[in-house]
């Protein structure tokens, strides 16, 4: 399967482009065309099955967006005006509000599932390399890769700080303890600063003079272009006729 992470598979840049096209198609689909959404879901299920990605894992990763959808849109069926539907004679729901809520929930869920599939099948280093193939400015891609490298280190430091504070009997409450949390985050910043200085010294010792070496002139291959060019009419067809 070309979507899998293999030497002869798709370039990560093409995967990002395909995910973007897919998301654009999903976002622009009117909520009423359920057949189109079924097609989108089917495509994702098919690719995940071919790649051996567990559908459940993808589902649960994508379900993380649902709380936001609910907070932002769940009250729409109650508040939006227009024609209303009576349920059991007690509850009056607005039909346009219901459609907006259903559309928003389906679209955000489908796109999050597509992003999770991209994420599960492609390591982040490949994704940044893919951004080179998409002609992103080198400075942005280098910084992205570097930020991602320090991410887990600093997140661990943050967790360690929090654990240390908790073991001293502290329980952070957002507003009540904001100043304490601020001191915690301040010392996290100090640690990130020290790390930056150490890394800067190490980089200078290895001869860094403002530009990262070693990324060859990557670009999309024939296979990548074929996949992208085949996906566009397919998505347009689903979008227009389903």
């Amino acid at each position, binding site marked *: 399967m070309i979507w899998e992470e293999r030497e002869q598979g798709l370039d990560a840049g093409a995967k990002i482009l395909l995910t*973007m096209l897919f*998301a654009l198609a*999903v*976002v*622009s689909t009117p909520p009423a065309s359920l057949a189109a959404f079924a097609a989108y879901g089917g495509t994702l299920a098919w690719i995940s099955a071919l790649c051996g990605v567990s559908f459940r894992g993808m589902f649960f990763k994508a379900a993380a967006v649902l709380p*936001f*959808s609910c907070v*932002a849109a769940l*009250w*729409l069926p109650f*508040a939006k005006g227009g024609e209303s539907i009576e349920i059991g004679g007690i509850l009056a729901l607005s039909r346009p509000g219901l459609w*907006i809520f259903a559309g*928003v929930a*389906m679209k*955000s869920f*489908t*796109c*999050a599932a597509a*992003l999770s599939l991209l*994420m599960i099948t492609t390591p*982040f280093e490949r*994704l940044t390399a893919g951004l080179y193939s998409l002609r992103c400015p080198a*400075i942005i891609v280098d*910084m*992205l890769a*570097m*930020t*991602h*490298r320090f*991410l887990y280190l*600093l*997140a661990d430091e*943050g*967790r360690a700080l929090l654990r240390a504070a908790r073991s001293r009997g502290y329980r952070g*409450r*957002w*507003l009540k*303890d*904001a*100043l*304490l*949390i*601020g*001191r915690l*985050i*301040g010392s*996290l*910043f*100090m640690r*990130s*600063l020290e*790390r*930056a*200085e150490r*890394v*800067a010294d190490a*980089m*200078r010792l290895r001869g*860094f003079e*403002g530009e990262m070496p070693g990324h060859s002139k990557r670009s999309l291959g024939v296979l990548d272009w074929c996949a992208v060019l085949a996906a566009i009419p397919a998505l347009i067809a689903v979008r227009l006729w389903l």
Partner: protein
Amino acid sequence: MHIPDGFISGPINTLGAAAAIAAVGVSAAKASAEVRANPQRMPLLATTGAFVFAAQMLNFPIGGGTSGHFMGGALVAALLGPWSAILAMSLVLTIQCLGFADGGLTALGTNIFNMGLIGGLGAYLVMRVLRPILPAGSGGFIATAGIASWVSIVLAALACSLELAFSGTSPLELVLPAMLSAHAVIGIGEALITAAVISAVLSARPDIFAAWAKLNGGEPTESYRTGALSLALGGLILALLLGVFLSPFASAFPDGLEKVAEVKGFLSASDGSQSWTASPLPDYSTPGVGAEGLSTSLAGLIGTLAVFLTGFIAIKLAGRLRRERA
């Protein structure tokens, strides 16, 4: 405030993406020049991005089973300057989108606009305006940063609710008060945290504020005179805020003149196809925009901009006349 896919309409996302690409382009160009002049800058920017991510991961209970987290745009703007703040926030948002499926791919530009541009550059502009007004000394600087981060959170929430409303996802008169009241409280936490971090960094590593000092021609703890431009900019921001925020809540009762006209019976004389129905924004509403609150807000926005532009042109003309006479 990470908006997923499907909430924002195509035109709004296109606008957001255009603004984000322009802002990230400018800040990447600035960063690239800085890194070439001083290679140490690159790990500093990268670890700052990672720091913002780590700080955002620390969730703190707000109460009622929900938790809030720190956003950080204003803090980075105060520590490293506005362009670094935009860059760091964009890096964090891109990684959260591509690596953690947090925030939508099609809404990435809009998210960068809300949290990077408004959260970073917006906070910096507020600080520029406040710095000469608030007292000198580290206390004044800490207060400046705290207020700026509150304003940046509220502005980002305002932008978020306007985007949701213009996309037709939720009606403005519902989403605006809900978002603003929630984020007015969340902003207090953000402000206190920013202030605490700044005071810690000021006491331990004052040299970090070099970017701020370089951009503004003075130490952050000094209070200095700013140019007329930044004052004008500050006035514009304040006026826009008042116009957009408060106009829907302004009194629906007739003003003094209208009341008198009503009582004296000459209001009808000015009704109908008279001057004010032919005006571009009749009765403080924007034609063609349905929702009343939204329509009034838009009218407030357009009116404020029009007044600002008129004043700006008038001052320019006056200056030119004076120079010609001299």
